[in-house]
């Protein structure tokens, strides 16, 4: 920022966690760059020390030193629209002259941080500290990003997802996922029941799809990203088979579900059940799941290990008719299908 091009005479450092107690997270900035950021939660103080370093035997005249805590949403396809939803400001130094390197403590108390940091395809929600040394011609500006994670409570209602889908007279399946709301380290457990199979299925997989919607009105951008593809069945089942599902979420890069954040964007997740037949036709059903972030505690170790071999247990059936699925049971919902094969369909 030094227009003289002689190199900056001043540099600044943020020391946020002198005791080294705060957790850090490796954040992907773009395809090549990653950086390590401290994790903060809503309502936590953001405090620390700013070190302003001067080159030897130099001095800097300034109009004041200001520190801001900013939360903002950037539209990546439209750099001009930056929406700040938080801006806290503190004056750390009155106008004067800096002659020596100095450290200045600061504290933003109980800062409200209503959203989770997010780095998406078309949108970026970031929190950062910005130190500005105000000068006559050009300011010296230093920024430091932090990562905010939004912790949630266990959802009060968390029903299983259960659905009977199919194609009339070709394929009837019933699938069940044990929950509709999963925390990020959770495991999806479920089962697929085959009630009618008249097509030659080759395999079946489950995919996690992230849908990012940005913008409003005419400028809506929708991005679908397949986060994970997971084969759960090999070969063709026959009527009556049940196939277990167990999908660990912890290994994938997921965020909590975000809805209509500042009316700017939403991030939603879907489980997509895909059956592929021998002609490479794909039959699929997408089902939204709600993801949330659970407080990271050292939970019971046995419980932790038990999920490694968890199986879906059918809740004791409320209505008996479901226990005896018949071929003729009508299809509640139709499986979508698409033809990926290069075989002409006619």
């Amino acid at each position, binding site marked *: 920022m030094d227009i003289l091009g002689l190199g900056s005479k001043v540099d600044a450092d943020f020391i946020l966690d002198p005791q080294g107690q705060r957790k850090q997270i490796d954040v992907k900035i773009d395809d090549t760059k990653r950086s390590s950021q401290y994790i903060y939660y809503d309502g936590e103080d953001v405090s620390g020390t700013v070190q302003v370093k001067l080159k030897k035997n130099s001095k800097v005249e300034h109009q004041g030193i200001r520190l801001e805590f900013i939360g903002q949403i950037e539209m990546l396809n439209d750099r001009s629209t930056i929406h700040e939803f938080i801006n806290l400001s503190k004056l750390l130094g009155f106008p004067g002259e800096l002659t020596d390197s100095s450290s200045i403590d600061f504290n933003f108390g109980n800062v409200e941080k209503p959203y989770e940091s997010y780095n998406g395809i078309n949108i970026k929600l970031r929190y950062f500290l910005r130190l500005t040394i105000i000068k006559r011609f050009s300011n010296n500006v230093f920024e430091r990003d932090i990562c905010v994670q939004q912790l949630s409570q266990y959802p009060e209602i968390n029903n299983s997802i259960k659905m009977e889908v199919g194609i009339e007279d070709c394929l009837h399946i019933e699938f069940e996922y044990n929950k509709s709301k999963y925390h990020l380290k959770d495991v999806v457990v479920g089962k697929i029941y085959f009630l009618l199979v008249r097509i030659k299925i080759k395999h079946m997989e489950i995919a996690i799809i992230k849908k990012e919607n940005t913008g409003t009105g005419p400028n809506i951008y929708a991005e679908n990203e397949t986060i994970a593809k997971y084969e759960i069945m*090999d070969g063709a089942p*026959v009527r009556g088979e049940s196939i*277990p599902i167990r999908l660990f979420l912890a290994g994938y890069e997921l965020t909590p579900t975000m809805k209509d954040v500042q009316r700017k964007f939403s991030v939603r997740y879907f489980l997509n059940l895909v059956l592929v037949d021998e002609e490479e036709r794909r039959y699929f059903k997408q089902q939204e799941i709600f993801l949330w972030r659970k407080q990271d505690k050292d939970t019971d170790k046995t419980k932790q290990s038990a999920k490694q071999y968890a199986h879906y247990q059918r809740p004791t059936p409320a209505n008996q008719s479901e226990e005896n699925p018949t071929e003729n049971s009508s299809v509640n919902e139709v499986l979508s299908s698409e033809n990926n094969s290069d075989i002409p369909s006619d």
Partner: protein
Amino acid sequence: MSMQKAVDNSRSSNAGLSMDNQEKLLADALQNVRQHAFAMKRVLDQQSVMEGLKHAANMLGELRTSLLSPKNYYELHVVVVEELHHLELYLTDEFEHGRGSHDLYEVVQYAGNIVPRLYLLITIGHVYIRANELPRREVLRDLVEMCRGVQHPLRGLFLRNYLLQCVKSLLPDTEEENQEATKTGTILDSLDFILLNFSEMNKLWVRMQYQGHTRDLQRREQERRELRILVGTNLVRLSELECVNVERYKTIVLPKIMEQVVSCRDSIAQEYLMECIIQVFPDEYHLNTLNEFLKACRELSASVNIRNILISLIDRLTAYSTRDGSQQNIPENIQLFDIFSEQIAEVVKSRINMPPEDIVALQSALLNLSLKCYRDQFEYGNKVLENTRKIFDNIALDTQVQTGTPAAKELVKMLKIPIDCYDILDVLKLNHYKLVLQLLSYRERHTVCMYIINSILDKETIIPTAEQVTQLFELLLTLIIDQTDSPLETSRQTITNEDFVEEQNLVARLYNNFQAPNDPDQQYHIIKICQDTFKNGGLERMRFTYPPIIMQAYALTFRYKNIREQDEKWEKKCQKLFQLCNQLINTLTKLETNDLPLRLYLQGALAASEIGSENAETIAYEFFSQAYTLYEEQAGDTRAQSASLTLLIGTLEKVTCFAEENHSTLRQSLTQAATRLVKRPDQVRTLLLCTHLFWSAQRLNESTQKSEQVHDNEKVLACLKKATKLTTQIMDQSVQVQLYNELLNTYIYFFNQNLPDIDITLLNSLIEKLQNEMSKISSNENDEFIRNQIQKTFDYLRQQSQLEKFQGLQINN
């Protein structure tokens, strides 16, 4: 259009799987496996578990192929599993050194493809259970459940096979009461595990049958047969669990297996699995679940060869019950025979289209069981035979089973069973045996009869009573009298037919086993019965069957003589026997050859002479004269005549019961007969034999009732002279020399016997004559034999010349 074609090509290459292509595919896959395995081992050496798992997953990815035939997939699987073992060893080692990672069971579940994922999961699960990292019970349950994800038959079968292989040593095999059991699991968990794995594997195996084109059906069935052992291994595992006892087998194991077997409705699976059950589980289990097992048999698919299954079970239990030679193995409360008998009847009833051979085979097995397990209870065996007969009577009364049909073959097999495990006397107690035998056509009856006889002869079974002989003959009737359904024309039942000869020789030999050792009267009965039976057999059979009766009858006369002190009627009985023989031999005279009856007559004469009963002379004379008559009838065949005459002379020389009158008649007749022979050498030789009739032959001195030698010098000399004279007339010089030699020998004999008028001078002149004649004959090879003979004579004489008696003997040679 071109697109369509390309698709077709790719499909046919998938389905066709040419052999060359297969080899190449396998080679490529193995190559990839080796590369990944090498990489895996290298990173494991550097302690990088995660990298190792990655390479292992890549290696396992090769098992996702659909292109290999089951055989080649198996080859690939073997190699992969072997390499996977390295990973397992590495992880186990890590745990033993306390540095095992705890989260691998979860980590491997991130593998995107299910086949590699499950192989890894099983491997880690195995290691974790052994290291006590995760609870055994839960992990076992998890693994067997998760394997459901592989529904492709071939891949699923091999995956579950790997599972079964890995958990082999891990299955809990303890009783429920155990306190620790909740954690480690109990026998019940093991049963759940294997039974689930079994039924899943069976389903996959059965499913293979219905995948693909019908034209490949045969190949598919072949492939399925190659894979069956994979399914069967589950049952083997079950049988190896120590906590499976009869009770658990009956209440848990068998019902579950049967449920799967019955419900899969696949005949290949049903046949194999039933057989497998029979073979892998202990006999005691089968004994206690007979009803359950047999009931399930009835529910099997109609195309299942139920016969083999039942037979296999029966055979197994039969072997068990007779093991170690004891028959104690079957608990008394299990009525093996009744159960099988009833259940087989049910099975037969439930399968209307069951071919008769299968029914017979079942009955055979049952018969085998009853004979071996209930050796002393003939009614069981009899009942089986009766049922068998009934089954055929129900189909069509009194018809024969057509020759050469499978049913006929099975019946033959069935009828051989009692022969093999009983001796014939016990078989005779099975009175329905005969009725079943009668079901058969000629050829099969013949086979069985021959089998019976051979068995009797091999075992040297003695048949001691006339009644048993009668029963036996009833069985063997096929061989004894002409059969209406015999395919051979009667004309072929002659001595020129080798098979017929062999058959009748056997029947004749059988006669030697009819022995009533301590009861001559019983033996007499036997002879009578044989006669009564054999007389219906026709002349061609009598040729074979009568001689043994006759010889036996002669032998019996000796036995009567031996007990003459106890049996005052012995002479009468002998008389009867001789009459019988006379009658039988007389029948035989109708044959084209006289030789046999002639010999039998002469034998009779000898026997009578030996017995020496009151009327022995009459009988002997009768027999002898009959023989002589037969001899006379032989005119025309000079060789046979001279041979017969030799027999007659020899016999007369031995018979001692003739008084002078009969004796002189006979010896004169024979001497005359000798001179009447056609050929000179025959005349000479028989005359030389006749000399003995006048010398050492014995006649009965009527006054002393003792026999004495004839010793008629003149007649002897007359014979010798006649013989000498005849010899001089012979044209053929070598024959003549030979006869001179024989003449000399006879002279030497009588010289030794001190016959007056034969002295050294006579001998010397004969010797000279012989030597002269000998020098005349040529020395070709034929005469070598004669020279030898003569040489031997001279050698003898030289030896004797030392003796005083032979003083003056002149031998120039």
